[in-house]
């Protein structure tokens, strides 16, 4: 079975600074996808970034980038130039790939990020 672990329950960062959120996962699959979701106080789940395991290049989306270390099974999220609107809970998630994949997401416990002015 796959597991996703986020070891930082809470983090804070000053506005305009950079912060990194950690995520590790455990799987025996070779074909999979990893995601970071943001959940602001509104509770809406928002996809931040996605990484395919077969791609060596780290995904980036504007101020958000990942450090994907496949051998170490690590998938951290870096937020650059933090903004007040980045205050939210962030979830790391895993999804199996391949033809038998049903699209099920396995979530970590979440990291609450507070951006301070």
């Amino acid at each position: 079975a796959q597991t996703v672990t986020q070891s930082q329950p809470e983090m804070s960062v000053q506005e305009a600074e950079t912060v990194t959120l950690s995520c590790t996962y455990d799987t025996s699959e070779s074909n999979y996808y990893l995601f970071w979701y943001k959940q602001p106080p509104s509770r809406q789940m928002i996809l931040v970034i996605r990484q395919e395991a077969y791609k060596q290049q780290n995904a980036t989306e504007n101020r958000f980038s990942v450090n994907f270390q496949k051998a170490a099974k690590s998938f951290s999220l870096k937020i650059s130039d933090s903004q007040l609107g980045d205050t939210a809970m962030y979830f790391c998630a895993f999804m199996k790939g391949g033809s038998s994949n049903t699209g099920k997401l396995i979530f970590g416990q979440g990291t609450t990020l507070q951006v301070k002015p």
Partner: protein
Amino acid sequence: NAGVTQTPKFRILKIGQSMTLQCAQDMNHNYMYWYRQDPGMGLKLIYYSVGAGITDKGEVPNGYNVSRSTTEDFPLRLELAAPSQTSVYFCASSYTRGVKYFGPGTRLLVL
């Protein structure tokens, strides 16, 4: 497009009552999912469906039932509500098995 809609937004149930959480999507997505999120925790999969007429259990299906008679709708039924079912419930859909679109959630309180 309205995306994924969920009703109600909030509900208080008494122990032993039943209710149906509604979920609908207008994107013609085949895949639909129900997750629950307990306070301060990540989401856990309750049930999912890969198409009309096809449903299967997720990690935490006990106490719930689903049906998928149309592509658009995926209701979640709670029978004999228990305090352990106090949670926020999210419905999600996707066209393929990839990116999910989540609904706004239904907050349920069982007293």
